[in-house]
């Protein structure tokens, strides 16, 4: 009988996630989490500017940040690392991030069904009550926890 897998730990997992690939390139950092939410930070970087004449982050990296925090909030809520695919992600930009400011995303997985997970969250640059962007998304679960594959 296989030992049950440990619950998904966003803090531990981010050590890996933030080292490779797109998240690693962006330099995303774990900041906090709860039962069904995760907070990640996107540090300021000169080469991620959206406009020539203003020192504000492009919106692309903010989508990546929100997408990553979305996936992690789902794994945190389900406590399993079940691969998910983004079906749909909507981001509303309330205002530009402040110049030379890091951006933090806080996303919660507020509802799960057998095959779908619903998430919502915000991105802010210091004050969560004055967000830079709000987002909503739907994800589909596409397979079982790969960590359990060896026990299949």
């Amino acid at each position, binding site marked *: 009988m296989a030992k049950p897998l440990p619950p998904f730990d966003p803090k531990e997992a981010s050590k890996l996630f933030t080292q*490779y690939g797109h998240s690693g390139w962006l330099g995303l950092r774990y900041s906090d989490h709860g039962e069904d939410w995760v907070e990640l930070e996107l540090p300021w970087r000169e080469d991620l500017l959206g406009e020539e004449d203003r020192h504000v982050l492009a919106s692309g990296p903010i989508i990546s940040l929100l997408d990553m925090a979305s996936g992690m909030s789902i794994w945190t809520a389900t406590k399993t690392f079940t691969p998910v695919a983004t079906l749909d992600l*909507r981001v509303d930009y309330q205002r530009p991030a402040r110049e030379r400011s890091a951006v933090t995303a806080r996303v919660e997985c507020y509802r799960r069904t057998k095959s779908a997970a619903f998430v919502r969250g915000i991105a802010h640059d210091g004050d969560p009550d004055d967000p830079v962007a709000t987002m909503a998304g739907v994800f589909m679960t596409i397979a079982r926890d790969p960590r359990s594959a060896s026990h299949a």
Partner: protein
Amino acid sequence: MPDPESLLSAYARSLGIAVNGSEDGAPLLTIEFSDIVQGRPGAFHGGATSGLLETAGYAALRARLIEEGRDPQLKPINITVQFLSAGKQKQTYAKGRITRLGRRNANVSVEAWQDNRDRPIATAIMNILMADRSA
């Protein structure tokens, strides 16, 4: 067709997005698969795909505005991305289309595809605010 480089942000260039000609007046954007766009092993990160779509949307709008002799500052209002299939380890294309160009708002739709243009891997719709630079 304006200077292709001028259609890309620092972010877009860092990510490896390039302008590869144009079709119907809209720039055709490309990106090669590499580690910096990778999410799940062997697949594009949804955020990188979104960044490509968004860049193509801005580029299409900027090209049209230049054609019309307008030079407003562009500000994102929103973007909705639909992910249709996993982006594989292949060159990926994206092109935007202006659905409606108003005085202050533009509605833009964008598609990204790989081998088969008729089977996009992701689509986006965007609202972009056009603000006077003097304002």
